[in-house]
């Protein structure tokens, strides 16, 4: 009986998934008949969706934050106003604009808030009827969206706007948001394809992509609130959290008790995400001139699967200082587990008078390479009058939460317990006596031998 019920629920939820992908959207005929006038067309049948959307992080790029050091409890933080050395700017100081002409006479549009589903005239965090009417619903919901229309341009009155595809063709062809929907913005964050987090959602790189899973199969969306985890650099959230353990997996997912026994101390990601990729270091003080005449922050990059993580105890609270943003935790606090992180180091200007990291408007250095002019422009926008810029480095830890390797590439016993294993037991707080035990082949010898014989 129970089995039947379980099967039935499974069948229903599975049908639900299929419905989203295959069935015709019930509003199609209405849209074909009445055209598409933006969100208000959708609101005829889905009232309240626009207002709901502008309350989420994907519109506000900020929220209150309660697990990070040195932030004020009543203020909001996010890409709108944060400053760290992956970006060194934000929606405010590096607002979307046409940059001055470079020495080849070329200009271009650039700015952080190009990754926003508004039209820029209604910008990050805007509210009211104009904002609600500006939402690009089809960017996420259409399967026939023409992305060549989604580009920055100047309106007749000189205001820079981001175009949208509001054609009936796009509005009449809705489908479930896919990986590439989300990758519209998430793919090229940090200054280029796979630069920031360096993960790829292809079958070869990711065990879930190999099963045709998409972002929102894990990030289950409720009323446009997209759940997130506890990456030390993802501060803004909509109050929903996800992790490997919960609705998808248990703490003991293996047929093998010896692996399961690690769950209380070692996060799933540690064994299952052995590599990521992306930028490992950037210099914002000296930009590199490109052949097209523009400059960009000097960046050391790696392909996906090329960077080896650093491992640290993490209790989901975050150290936030001018020289370091990363995990807090310890072996003995009872809340931490060992997690993998991509280490990134960025050089930028600090204010010698306060020790704070200064932010940068990218427009001036993009065209001339003059990074101090970028700092001056940002300081002016923020009303900072007293500053003395000095270069310095910041170290940042990014969580490795994607690109779950195919299971045969998951870390095995000797990857950690051999003397040259990936974990620095000493730094992780183990005593010499414990390390002797943890690096004793006794722990794994028989089992690896058996496996080897099976495979020979």
């Amino acid at each position, binding site marked *: 009986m129970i089995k039947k019920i379980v099967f039935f629920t499974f069948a229903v939820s599975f049908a639900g998934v299929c419905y989203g992908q295959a069935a015709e959207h019930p509003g199609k005929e209405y849209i074909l008949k009445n055209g598409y006038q933006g969100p208000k067309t959708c609101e005829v049948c889905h009232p309240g969706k626009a207002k709901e959307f502008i309350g989420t992080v994907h519109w506000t790029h900020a929220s209150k934050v309660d697990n990070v050091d040195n932030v004020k409890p009543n203020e909001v933080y996010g890409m709108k106003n944060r400053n760290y050395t992956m970006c060194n700017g934000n929606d405010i100081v590096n607002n979307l604009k046409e940059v001055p002409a470079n020495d080849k006479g070329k200009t271009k549009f650039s700015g952080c808030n190009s990754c926003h589903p508004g039209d820029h005239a209604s910008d990050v965090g805007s509210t009211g009827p104009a904002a609600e009417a500006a939402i690009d619903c089809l960017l996420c919901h259409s399967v026939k969206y023409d*992305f060549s229309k989604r580009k920055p341009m100047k309106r007749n009155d000189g205001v820079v706007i981001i175009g949208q595809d509001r054609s009936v063709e796009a509005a009449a062809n809705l489908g479930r948001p896919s990986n590439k929907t989300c990758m519209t913005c998430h793919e090229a964050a940090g200054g280029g394809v796979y630069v920031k987090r360096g993960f790829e959602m*292809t079958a070869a790189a990711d065990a879930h992509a190999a099963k045709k899973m998409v972002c929102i199969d894990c990030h289950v969306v409720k009323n446009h609130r997209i759940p997130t985890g506890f990456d030390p650099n993802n501060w803004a959230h909509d109050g929903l959290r996800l992790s490997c353990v919960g609705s998808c997996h248990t703490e003991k997912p293996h047929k093998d008790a010896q692996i399961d026994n690690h769950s209380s101390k070692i996060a799933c990601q540690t064994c299952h995400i052995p590599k990521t990729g992306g930028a490992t270091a950037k210099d914002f003080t000296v930009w590199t001139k490109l052949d097209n005449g523009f400059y960009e922050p000097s960046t050391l990059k790696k392909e996906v699967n090329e960077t080896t993580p650093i491992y640290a105890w993490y209790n989901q609270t975050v150290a936030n200082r001018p020289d370091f943003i990363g995990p807090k935790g310890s072996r003995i606090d009872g809340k931490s587990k060992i997690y993998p992180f991509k280490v990134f180091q960025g050089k930028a200007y600090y204010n010698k008078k306060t020790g704070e990291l200064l932010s940068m408007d990218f427009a001036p250095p993009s065209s001339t390479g003059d990074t101090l002019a970028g700092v001056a422009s940002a300081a002016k926008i923020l009303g900072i009058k007293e500053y003395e810029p000095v270069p310095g480095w910041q170290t940042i830890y990014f969580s490795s939460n994607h690109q779950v390797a195919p299971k045969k590439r998951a870390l095995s016993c000797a990857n950690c317990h051999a003397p040259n294993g990936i974990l620095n037991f000493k730094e992780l707080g183990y005593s010499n006596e414990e390390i002797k035990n943890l690096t004793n082949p006794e722990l794994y010898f028989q089992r690896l031998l058996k496996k080897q014989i099976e495979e020979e």
Partner: protein
Amino acid sequence: MKRVLSGVLVAAFMLVSVVMFSQTAQADEGKIVGTISKLVISADKKSATVVLKDIKSGEDLTVLITDDLTLDKFNDKRIVEGDEIRCKYEKDGGKNSSKMFKKTAGC
């Protein structure tokens, strides 16, 4: 017996890898940063031919694209004529086959 077999296998494997290795070593690899001056998707949508104008030299290079991810980006116009691309390719039999094809821009 098992030993002998695996020995043979190892030898065969080594031979194959030597051959493969020398092949990749022979194959001419190139890279280019250029703007797309022409983009033609084949009738069966399984490939596309792109002309890239080298930013540095101004010379044209024709590249063949066959990977689904990139083809899909042509299809919904995420990548269009005029975009600046960083591309790595392999010369095989007179064709330049793309191995990496990414927009240079980010945010």
